[in-house]
């Protein structure tokens, strides 16, 4: 961007915007007096936990609030012109032309029964009145502009034939076709894998520069904000609580909520021994329960005073360009903050993986799924059978009492590994021993004593509990089934477990629909620990939770693990969480463990090239940190037909480190190279070369 004498007016100026919905509780205000500006070629990040009204603001700008929503007051000035009160027809001309939007789930946002080309071209045809062929040509150009491989062909395909990353590129191309002045992006990368996310974020940054477009970027991920935003607006419970340039915000968060959010996020490169996660207590109030005439954050605020509870603070500018909605903004010193006693913090001490013996021993484990062939012959049981090699030769030893994290992109086989261990899938080959017993059979044929020792915590809080039973019944069931305690003590034991997961005994009679996501997850944990298992598998237990809840659940897990001395296998795609939570980390790619080692070892050179790429893709919640920019090309290959030799060779950015430019990778399976006794890398590149790599992340 070139500098100017005369500053141009902001593209979008939102003032005192309030939006309400008609619900069964009456008219409920979802967004209350929000003000912000978006300038040309800048990105405004709209951050906050779910339910804070971010998306409502986005749809409010386009006045697309559905039949029961309406703008109560406020003004939205787009390029100096008021949008509130415009007719549907006038808005229609703006939508898709001057103001466009990119959505969270690209698959849902694209019409499944129209080709990509039709959906792209019609934007031009409608807004530009140009012939079809011309529109088609320009659409292809735009697809190429967003680095879509094989654009002319993509135009003829249907959405489901593209991968998630490609779909998101299509949606972005669609949004940019008319060279809009304002682009609203609603969590555009949340559904994507971390490596794809990184590529999409790069693309967004580049497009912002080239098109002079003002961007509103809605996200809950502070790392993403730090990476691509220029300005940040923090929303809480429908109100804007803080607004600042990105570096300023991260350096000096003024509002207690912003400060709290930052304390919830695990920082990459810091272990659990070094850092703590401090969850914000309580939860975001539902729109109908929000207090008027008080600070909306007061019930959860550590600094709240009588004034906060009786008077509503206004958004006021504390420093240049930095505003906060807090009476005490600027007076509060975040570094002097002390956790209140209401938050439970686990005591964490470092542990080594020795001396206690092995809980789980996996040797060359393979789990294949049969894939029905597409030929007519398969009807008669003929035809070649194909196998999805979900787990393809994994060896892993889990010592007692420690946590092993498993990371990798989706489709790398980490969930299948968990299912195989727990007994929901049968291994195709290999050794699977738990406490010295063979468990390579489905769970139904395992001894009940072994089942009891091996439990699991699940990802999705909404489906982790059976909606038909109360909390108590669900926790009691494993107690009854495994006869952990005598029948008459079951109730007491359930109450004890509820205490252990910091839930009030009154929760005993509640139904899952009455619980929040974090509470459900707590019940899930209580249920998993009810049988006092030796090993607990955690399959992405926090990835569906908001950051503050995530912090609380992570703390809880750490605490319970310490108290029970449980061994854990922690599966996640978020490297910072894994780093925070695990003692050892296994990096998986296409059914193989490509690197294994202690958490510290994984996050410092030597890296496996894949680990390196993963690390460089992780969004870091620190705008000042620098990160190597390594981007993987293409998609994860199909596990039906994995690449020969090293499975990673098709995407490996480091093959040129080898003398023969990586020919050997295509042919030979890479050797396990041991860096230390407990750290190995599966790569053809010699360790010396790998050690020469620079750390991916350097914090200033």
């Amino acid at each position, binding site marked *: 961007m070139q500098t100017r004498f*005369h500053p141009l*007016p902001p593209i979008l100026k939102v003032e005192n915007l309030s939006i309400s919905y008609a619900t069964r509780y009456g008219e409920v205000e979802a967004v209350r007096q929000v003000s912000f500006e978006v300038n040309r070629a800048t990105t405004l990040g709209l951050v906050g936990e779910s339910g804070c009204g971010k998306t409502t603001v986005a749809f409010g700008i386009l006045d697309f609030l559905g039949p029961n929503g309406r703008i109560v007051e406020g003004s939205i000035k787009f390029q100096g*012109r008021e949008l509130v009160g415009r007719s549907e027809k006038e808005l229609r001309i703006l939508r898709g032309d001057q103001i466009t939007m990119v959505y969270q789930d690209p698959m849902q946002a694209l019409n499944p029964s129209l080709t990509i080309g039709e959906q792209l071209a019609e934007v031009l045809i409608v*807004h530009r009145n*140009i012939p079809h062929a011309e529109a088609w040509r320009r659409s292809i150009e735009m697809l190429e502009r967003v680095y879509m491989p094989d654009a002319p062909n993509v135009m003829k395909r249907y959405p489901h034939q593209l991968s998630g990353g490609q779909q998101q590129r299509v949606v972005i191309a669609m949004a940019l076709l008319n060279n809009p002045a304002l682009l609203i992006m609603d969590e555009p990368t949340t559904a994507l894998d971390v490596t794809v996310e990184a590529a999409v974020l790069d693309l967004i940054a580049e497009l912002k520069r080239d098109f002079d477009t003002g961007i509103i970027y809605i996200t809950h991920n502070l790392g993403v904000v730090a990476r691509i935003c220029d300005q940040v607006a923090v929303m809480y419970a429908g109100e804007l609580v803080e607004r600042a340039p990105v570096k300023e915000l991260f350096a000096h968060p003024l509002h207690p909520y912003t400060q709290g959010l930052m304390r919830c996020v695990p920082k990459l490169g810091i272990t659990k021994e070094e850092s703590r996660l401090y969850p914000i207590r309580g939860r975001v109030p539902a729109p109908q329960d929000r207090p008027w005439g008080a600070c909306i954050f007061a019930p959860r605020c550590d600094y709240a005073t009588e004034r906060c509870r009786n008077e509503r603070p206004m958004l006021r500018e504390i420093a240049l360009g930095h505003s906060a909605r807090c009476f005490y903004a600027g007076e509060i010193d975040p570094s002097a903050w002390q956790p209140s006693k209401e938050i439970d913090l686990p005591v964490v001490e470092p542990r080594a993986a020795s001396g206690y013996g092995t809980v789980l021993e996996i040797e060359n484990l393979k789990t294949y799924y049969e894939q029905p062939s597409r030929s007519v012959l398969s009807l008669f049981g003929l035809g070649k059978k194909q196998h999805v090699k979900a787990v393809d030769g994994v060896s892993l030893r889990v010592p007692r009492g420690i946590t092993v994290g498993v990371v990798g992109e989706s489709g790398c086989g980490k969930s299948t590994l968990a299912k195989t261990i727990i007994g929901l899938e049968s291994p195709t080959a290999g050794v699977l021993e738990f406490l010295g017993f063979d468990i390579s059979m489905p769970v139904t044929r395992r001894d009940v004593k072994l089942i009891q020792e091996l439990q699991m915590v699940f990802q999705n809080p909404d489906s982790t509990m059976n909606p038909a039973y109360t909390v108590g019944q669900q926790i009691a069931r494993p107690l009854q089934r495994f006869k952990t305690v005598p029948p008459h003590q079951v109730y007491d034991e359930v109450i004890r477990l509820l205490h252990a997961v910091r839930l009030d005994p009154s929760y005993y009679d509640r139904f899952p629909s009455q619980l929040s996501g974090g509470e459900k997850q707590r019940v899930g944990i209580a249920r998993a620990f009810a049988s006092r298992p030796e090993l607990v598998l955690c399959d992405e237990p926090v990835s569906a939770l908001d950051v503050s809840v995530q912090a609380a659940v992570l703390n809880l897990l750490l605490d319970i693990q310490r108290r029970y001395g449980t061994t854990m296998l922690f599966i996640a795609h978020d490297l910072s969480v894994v780093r925070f939570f695990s003692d050892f980390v296994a990096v998986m790619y296409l059914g193989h463990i490509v690197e294994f080692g202690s958490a510290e070892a994984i996050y410092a050179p030597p890296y496996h090239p894949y680990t390196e790429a993963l690390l460089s893709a992780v969004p870091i919640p620190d705008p000042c940190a620098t990160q190597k920019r390594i981007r993987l090309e293409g998609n994860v290959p199909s596990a039906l037909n994995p690449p020969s030799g090293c499975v990673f060779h098709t995407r490996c950015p480091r093959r040129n480190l080898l003398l023969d430019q990586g020919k050997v990778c295509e042919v030979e399976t890479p050797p396990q190279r041991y860096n230390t006794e407990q750290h190995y890398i599966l790569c053809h590149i010699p360790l010396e070369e790998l050690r020469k790599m620079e750390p991916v992340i350097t914090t200033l």
Partner: protein
Amino acid sequence: MFVGDYMTRHPLTVTPDTSIVEVQGIMAENNIRHVPVVEKGKRLVGLVTRQNLRISPIELSSLNVWEITRLLSGLKVKDVMVRGKDVITATPDTPIEEAARILVTHRIGCLPVLEEGIVVGIITESDLLTQLTNLLGLQVPGWRATIRVPDRAGEFAKITAAVASRGWGIDAAGSLPTPRKPGYWDVVIKISAATRDELVAVLQQIEGQELIDIRATGP
């Protein structure tokens, strides 16, 4: 240095049916003087400037205050704008000096920039003047030196060679024939990596050239 790089993208536009009262408001609020008029598909149909909106008092003098109000509220952009065929436009690949020439020769204040008939931007006098300041390095802090050189091939190379030999870089440069002194050109360079004394020492040593002025400029 083409118009496409320096124009203002996403210019504010109005439609032919916008009332002039509203246009006036928009201009005042955003502090602009030119608004392209577009119809469906962002196709240019005209241009409104502040001049167009000015109504001569003579025209109004015969009317009473109610009639004026009614007249004004009824007036639409299409009644006052410069019609499409009369609007002079540029394309994104027009060189900026060409754009400046057009502005000067036609004595106008702005050029809507069209790409395939669609308004993609607008370039105004002030945009061009901004670029003049950039051209001469006003936007970077450093030393602005004016050197008078004879109108001969290789003179500019002497300057760059001298600067490059010290490992400095030229942040901006420009040259014009010296006014009222034929056979000479004034070269302006902007250097930020050196101190004033170092720079003076180097520039003064160049044979056949004269350091006329050196001063610190910056934003």
